[in-house]
């Protein structure tokens, strides 16, 4: 029995006379924070799962931002994907659980998402493990 994922079922909302305007507002918010990053080194994250999106808005945003030069995969409590968009400093981060369901999705405005760096606690743990050799 082959199963079909929900996302594979194409749902088309027949509406072309209406643009939600959500894209405009989030893009200007992102641009504002990108300036803050450059001028004040302030990073910012936006929880994409807390947005009152219209159907299709999120896809439109992702298509607009596109894929940039770098993509990083993390494996901790399931997979996580970090990729920089075509706009430098704007990253899209998707966290999955062990069942490959999305448990978090954010836009991070930063030079490098914090979680990509090696973490102090893990480094300490590594030292101990190395000493046991």
């Amino acid at each position, binding site marked *: 029995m082959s199963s079909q994922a929900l996302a594979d079922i194409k749902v088309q909302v027949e509406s072309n006379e209406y643009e939600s305007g959500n894209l405009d507002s989030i893009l200007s918010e992102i641009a504002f924070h990108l300036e803050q990053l450059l001028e004040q080194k302030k990073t910012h994250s936006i929880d994409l799962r807390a947005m*009152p999106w219209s159907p299709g808005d999120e896809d439109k945003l992702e298509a607009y931002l596109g894929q940039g030069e770098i993509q990083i995969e993390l494996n*901790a409590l399931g997979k996580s994907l970090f990729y920089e968009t075509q706009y430098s400093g704007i990253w899209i981060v998707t966290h999955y659980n062990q069942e490959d369901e999305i448990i978090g999705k954010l836009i991070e405005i930063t030079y490098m998402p914090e979680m990509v760096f090696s973490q102090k606690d893990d480094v300490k743990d590594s030292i101990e493990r190395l000493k046991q050799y």
Partner: protein
Amino acid sequence: MMNKKTLFESLQQQGVTRRGFMKYCTALTSLMALPPSMIPIVANALESAKRPSVIWLSFQECTGCAESLLRSHSPTVEGLIFDHISLDYQHTLQAAAGDAAEHAREQAMKEHYGKYLVVVDGSIPLADPGYSTIAGISNLDMLNETVAGAAAVIAVGTCSAYGGLPMADPNPTGAVSVSSLVKDKPVINVPGCPPIPTVITGVLAHYLTFGSIPELDDLGRPKVFYGQSIHDRCYRRPFYDKGLFAETFDDEGAKKGWCLYRLGCKGPMTYNACATLKWNQQTSWPVESGHGCLGCSEPNFWDAGSFYKALSIPDGDYAKAAGYAVATGVALGAAAGFANQKTKSSAVSQHTKVTVDDFDMNKDKK
């Protein structure tokens, strides 16, 4: 709380790295509907959070609320949270039954006196305790006995928060809500029929993380989840504002995704998080799938007339009407017998049955 290990330590023992922990905190922060800037604070709090003991009481309910939570999706953040609270009593889920189960409850109460959380789903019958008993104990007695040593009570679902379906007219069992009986402990209402699973776990997570109760609105609901109306967050709102309404479920307007107000949508008077958190792992939500909101997280929603009748009262007045309904609910709890009879008879006279006519959207124009 009795468990000596903190959540962070037990994750570490399972081989979860700091990155994994930070990922967990990120998902948890999103689950609690907090902004991502709170992630470090959540991480900090979780490093010292202990497992709280939870006693879950099910009274006059359909088990739908527990189903909403438990069948939602397994090993996710919600699943992880359940690894980190100690669910010491839940008679639908636990293996033990009868006396053994009740012993587990008494044991948990004794060990964590003053510190455990009580979750209640279902309403409490006051007309005759015989309507609903567990191990021969009436719901009222079990509630009073268990709440005595609780730190706080979470009323999950509209039945336990506001009386719900059992309290709907003519309320044969004299059903009342938890908050109309529990006056000396904080009660957090998590209404919905059923509530969104991530809202239930979000509230539990808040307590687990911060050891405190989230900010509540005047109906006892956490503001992070119930602070805005469905209508205020609805993506069909621009159509409402332009006066573009679907008139039937399959007309041109319905196909174009216009506002469902005239098809009975109760979004304007309903406070819940469906428009942002959505349902079924964020797949969709009622309005997105083409049906109006039923108003399931509001007091007395079962008696608010047909689901398909357009709201006729402007927002402001409706809020007042709902407020009045809550006041009635409270009075009911205080002087159950007499007041109850009175409410019953007035409810009978106000009762409206849904007929096939309600589905005929052109009826009013004829």
